[in-house]
């Protein structure tokens, strides 16, 4: 039997759709929908979580994220500049830092900051209580990733930009501040926004520091409600609230990338 290549491609495509639909239908048929909705979609339990789910838990999640991001970005910028420095010990330190903190679980670092720092420095404490500890604990890890992103951004700015700035009489630091970094940051806005998305989810680790009813964030809040009501609906509520932060952010990244692509 001879079949034209076009006909063969059509048949393969239709077969693909049919198989996909069959798998979905099979999984859906196997599930017990009544039990699923009793477990995950109890509207009364979901309703009882509000308004605290938003005014306290979602709010704290956002605050933890932003604090860790600002701390991480500042430290990350510093590390990126150290990595590109002509001073060898700076480069060593930055490289060692980045390798170390990219290799450690964020949870472990958070533990160390939450419990190790008070033991090591009994007379001092990180300002801001649990907020400060979260900013440092999550920011230390985020800084390692952001340093590499920023370094790549700085190196993506054409070499001629620095030369032009220097020939106008700008010192190296002045050229960095006025010419190179503004362009580098434009380049790294999409990956940095991705970093905010990752940080948002990492705030679910904050419970290990022991949070109170005022400093609670989404995951701990959902977990507590799950324990008291013996029903997993709160997890769905928390999941939807996380998505309410992360989906717009990832849309934003996509938009920024499209715009950056269009400029060239």
């Amino acid at each position: 039997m001879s079949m034209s290549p076009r006909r063969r491609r059509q048949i393969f495509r239709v077969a693909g759709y049919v198989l996909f639909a069959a798998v979905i239908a099979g999984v859906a048929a196997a599930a017990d929908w009544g039990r699923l909705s009793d477990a995950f979609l109890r509207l009364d339990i979901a309703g009882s979580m509000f308004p605290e789910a938003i005014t306290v838990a979602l709010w704290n999640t956002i605050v933890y994220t932003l604090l860790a991001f600002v701390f991480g970005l500042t430290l990350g910028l510093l590390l990126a500049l150290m990595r590109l420095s002509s001073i060898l010990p700076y480069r060593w330190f930055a490289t060692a830092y980045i390798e170390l903190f990219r290799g450690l679980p964020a949870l472990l670092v958070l533990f160390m900051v939450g419990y190790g720092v008070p033991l090591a420095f009994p007379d001092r404490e990180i300002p801001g209580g649990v907020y400060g500890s979260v900013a440092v604990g999550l920011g230390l890890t985020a800084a390692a990733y952001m340093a590499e992103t920023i370094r790549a951004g700085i190196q993506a700015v054409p070499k001629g930009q620095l030369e032009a700035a220097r020939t106008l009489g700008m010192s190296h630091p002045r050229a960095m501040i006025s010419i190179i970094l503004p362009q580098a940051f434009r380049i790294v806005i999409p990956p940095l926004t991705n970093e905010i998305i990752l940080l948002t989810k990492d705030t679910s680790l904050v419970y290990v520091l022991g949070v109170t009813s005022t400093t609670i964030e989404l995951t701990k809040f959902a977990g507590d409600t799950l324990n008291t009501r013996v029903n997993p609906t709160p997890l769905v509520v928390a999941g939807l609230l996380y998505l309410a932060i992360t989906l717009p952010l990832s849309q934003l990244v996509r938009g920024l990338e499209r715009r950056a692509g269009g400029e060239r």
Partner: protein
Amino acid sequence: MSTIEISGLHKSFGALEVLRGIDLSVEPGEVVCVIGPSGSGKSTLLRCVNLLEEPTSGSIRVAGVEVTDPDCDIDAVRRGIGMVFQQFNLFGHLTVRENVTIAQRRVLRRSRAAAARIATANLSRVGLLEKAGSYPAQLSGGQQQRVAIARALAMDPQLMLFDEPTSALDPELVGEVLAVMRGLAAEGMTMLVVTHEMAFAREVASRVVFMDGGVVVEQGPPADVFGTPREERTRAFLHRVLEPARVSENEIGVQRKE
């Protein structure tokens, strides 16, 4: 005092010796065009003058200041030297006006009003005042290069360096940039120009310098270098550049199959 005085300049990149003993001076008001084949060291020579490249040995004085002296404040020297690049190198995140004002503000510490006034004068000078609010990416290559010239002029340089300013341009845009440079020369600006535009060199230069293999092969008034070149290497180069359609196959070693 010469504006530029170069003596015994050597520059190596690793094992590659690009400049092999250059002696050259440029007097105030002179327009010196440097010509020569690719890889002859012309651009490297130019970039040594404002220390974008560190000379391996030799001495370079700009307006009497020894730039190779480790104690020399190179940022101060560079303020007096305008430079125009092959790739324009306008600051992409700034508007045309901001490109022309930023160094005035941050380096010369001019007031906002003074910087704006000088920017306006220099953008008019290159015929682009109406583009003051545009971003570089919105301009043609020729327009970008004219802005780059205005940006350099806004610093009131005593010397302008041009590094193949028209080599990255589409042919129909070369003329507008050369027109600005010709006007600048007529006003008495001291210029050191690395170029492949032989017609410009012949017409505008007070002196033409032919470089090959990292040395100055010959130099003199354009009428002499172009009209009666003394060196065989100069003649061969000019033949290939000025009459590219007449380069014969046996000159370049083509072997015909019998």
